[in-house]
């Protein structure tokens, strides 16, 4: 690498930190998603039970005459179970939210650092890329992109939980698919960006 100005070094240092944070967040993110999988299965299953129990035409058979309050009791039990599973998911959601915030902050730091230092770094330096190190402009763009994606993904998930209603067949039947749609794309994108920066991350920035 040729001689860098101190401003450029500062900026690179910040980017280094930010991508480290992103890397860290990604693993937390993945773990949290994995932890959600089991309770989600449960939720899906319980929703199905809930709907079937609400819809079952049991009064007709007359068999359940001795149990007049059975439907109510059963639904109550299912709902309690649902609550429990949802609260487990919410714990993971909190972790995702933290990731979101952290990435957002780092994106802000890096942009700020760039804005502060940009008058002293010529454009060709910003656009310069080497085999081991991507251009500063690219890294900034990636950071913004990652922030956007993570923000959207988190809020989509949150929205699902908000509108969750075990009585709503449409919302629950493919809850899991809807919930996890886009997860893989997000991870792939972030990993792609991280792979571009892998050499850069190993570098020591003084």
């Amino acid at each position, binding site marked *: 690498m040729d001689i860098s100005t101190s401003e450029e070094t500062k900026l690179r240092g910040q980017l280094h930190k930010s991508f480290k944070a992103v890397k860290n967040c990604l693993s937390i993110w993945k773990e949290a998603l994995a932890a959600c999988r089991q309770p989600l299965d449960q939720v899906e299953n319980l929703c*199905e*039970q809930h709907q*079937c*129990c609400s*819809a*079952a*035409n*049991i009064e007709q*058979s007359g*068999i*359940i005459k*001795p*149990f007049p309050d*059975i439907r109510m*009791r*059963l639904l*109550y*039990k*299912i709902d*309690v*179970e649902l609550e429990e599973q949802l609260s487990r998911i919410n714990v993971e959601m909190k972790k995702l939210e933290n990731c979101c915030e952290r990435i957002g902050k780092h994106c802000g730091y890096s942009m700020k650092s760039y804005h502060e230092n940009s008058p002293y770094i010529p454009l060709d330096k910003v656009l310069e890329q080497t085999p081991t190190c991507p251009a500063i402009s690219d890294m900034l763009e990636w950071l913004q992109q990652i922030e956007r994606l993570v923000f959207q993904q988190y809020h989509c998930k949150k929205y699902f939980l908000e509108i969750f209603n075990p009585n709503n067949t449409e919302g629950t039947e493919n809850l899991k698919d809807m919930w996890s749609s886009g997860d893989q794309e997000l991870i792939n994108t972030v990993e792609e960006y991280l792979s571009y920066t892998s050499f850069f991350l190993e570098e020591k920035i003084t």
Partner: protein
Amino acid sequence: MDKDFLPVEIRCSPEKGKNMNLTGSPRKLKDTAADVFNTLHRWTDLNKDGRNAMNEIANIKLDIILSKEAASEETVSHSNSFPTSLEPLCQQLAEIYKKMEKCVNKLEGFAQIMENLHQLESYRNSKSEETLSPMFLTWHTAHFVEATQEVFKSYKKELSLKKMIIENVCHATDRNTMMFYIAAWIHQPYITDNATLLVESMLTETGHRGC
């Protein structure tokens, strides 16, 4: 004993760790509480076995229901609704039911024991003209009686529900009803939160559950 401060400081049952020394009514009470817990544990296991059997039945039945729906026009002969593969499962369920019935009978016995203990204690206390003091921490014998009675009642009700389920599950004609039976089996709607809480309290009271 300063009762005023009791709720503030959660103490362990005074008998904790002094198992050996326990005699008489407290001893008997504590053992019964343990028996209740064990019986319920057994019930839970049985329920799990039943759940597996139920699931298998459900799979078989749902296949039939689905194929029936698909070929709604063609008259599916009645015998098709009850394939032979169901039989061993029903047998299994019947056995489970019998075991559960035993559990409930046991519970009834425990409730009786509690009642007897309570009467004995009341009789004693009425002689000594002392106010009723708690057996261990806070509960009087009457509480134990109430608790075991409550547990017994709810399990008895649940047992009758199980009976109904076992009798009818193979005759379910649509998916919703089938699912209803399974959910009812799994979630045991008549075992109330209260009953579960009572058992836990009882265990804490008698020192089986540490704090």
